């Protein structure tokens, strides 16, 4: 068990890193299983961008919390309760529609967050954001194109995409949640106020949903806890599979 860093900027950097890392692994699970070769390549390319962002942010976290821990240690030797990613990114891949909608909801959020973070008072976070904003623009374009094709496609694709949207929508509330850490990094000029990203996110998502003939979900259920290490059931299984090799053969190289 590795204690969560105490410095708010370190905790914040770790949250950003965990979001990227966990989603990267979920997308990598599509490798050799995607519905078409081009999609296999697209999803793993996106996974690679996210992994690169995560590595740079883990390195920054290690500087900020003063431990100088390696990226591998953050990725492979922390337990479930030590991860502070949001619940949305850990949700299972489901069918292709679930993966596409998860990408749409999260990439829209990430694009706005990175754009704001490129002005961060933390120069390292600003540098990561400056690169990431260009990469996430592609991710969002990919998710938008697929949402339109699936939502406004056949009866079958429409039904499945609407179901995916209804399933994942509750997890989006957590993205805009504030807490003591968020308030402190906002005060330091490190990060944008998450609640203030909501309006632009809503407008952007609404535009795509309307064009894709999808209905805006009306649920008010808003599960939360990811930022405090409380995760959904599927996450433990993902970590077990992902961390097994590294833990079974500590320090192995090839």
């Amino acid at each position, binding site marked *: 068990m590795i204690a969560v860093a105490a410095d708010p900027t370190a905790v914040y950097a770790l949250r950003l890193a965990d979001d990227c890392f966990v989603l990267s692994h979920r997308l990598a699970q599509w490798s050799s299983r995607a519905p078409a070769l*081009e999609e296999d*390549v*697209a999803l793993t*390319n*996106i996974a*690679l*961008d*996210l*992994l*690169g*962002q995560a*590595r*740079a942010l883990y390195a920054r976290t290690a500087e900020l919390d003063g431990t100088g821990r390696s990226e591998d240690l953050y990725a492979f030797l922390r337990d479930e309760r030590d991860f502070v990613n949001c619940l949305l990114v850990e949700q299972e891949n489901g069918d292709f529609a679930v993966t596409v909608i998860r990408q749409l909801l999260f990439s829209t959020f990430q694009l706005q967050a990175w754009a704001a973070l490129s002005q961060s008072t933390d*120069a*390292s976070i*600003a*540098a*990561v954001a*400056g*690169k*990431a904003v*260009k*990469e996430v623009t*592609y991710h969002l*374009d*990919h998710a938008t194109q697929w949402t339109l094709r699936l939502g406004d496609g056949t009866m079958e694709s429409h039904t499945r995409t609407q179901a995916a949207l209804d399933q994942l929508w509750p997890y989006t509330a957590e993205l805009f949640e504030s807490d003591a850490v968020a308030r402190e990094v906002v005060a330091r000029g490190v990060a944008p106020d998450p609640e203030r990203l909501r309006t632009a996110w809503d407008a952007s998502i609404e535009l795509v949903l309307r064009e894709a003939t999808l209905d805006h979900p009306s649920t008010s259920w808003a599960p939360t806890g990811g930022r405090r290490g409380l995760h959904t059931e599927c996450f433990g299984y993902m970590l077990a599979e992902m961390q097994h090799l590294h833990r079974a053969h500590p320090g192995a190289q090839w």
Partner: protein
Amino acid sequence: MTALDRARRAAGEVADPEIPVLTIADLGILRDVRVDASGHVDVDITPTYSGCPALDMIRADVASSVRAAGYADVTVNVVLSPAWTTDWMSETGRRKLREYGIAPPRPRESGMQLLQIAVACPVCGSAHTSEVAHFASTQCQALRRCTDCAEPFPHFKEH
């Protein structure tokens, strides 16, 4: 040639592992080379994309190339800011890419965004090409097809 020129040449001539016709100087990812009074060499490189898997290999290749040029003490730093853009690719790099069968990136910072130049087929030169997939064999390429000669080809996408 000064010590700095020698070190810069040694670092710059390292080939990109994924597209070996290009050097890292052609790609624009070699950002700076410094030699201090004690002969220590600092090389700054920047990744094309955040997760580029070639970066670790490029780091190692740069260090060994600079050492082979006679500088035993070398540090290769990875800098992220300012973020790399395809506008930093040299004209030589663009020509080499085309000859290698990859359509080079178009200029990004043009005042006339409405007049986007077509991506020309590197095989027959036709401007009639279309995108097949935005993501291809590496993060920096997209897959296109020529509607005249029917050849599929990679396009080093603007970034």
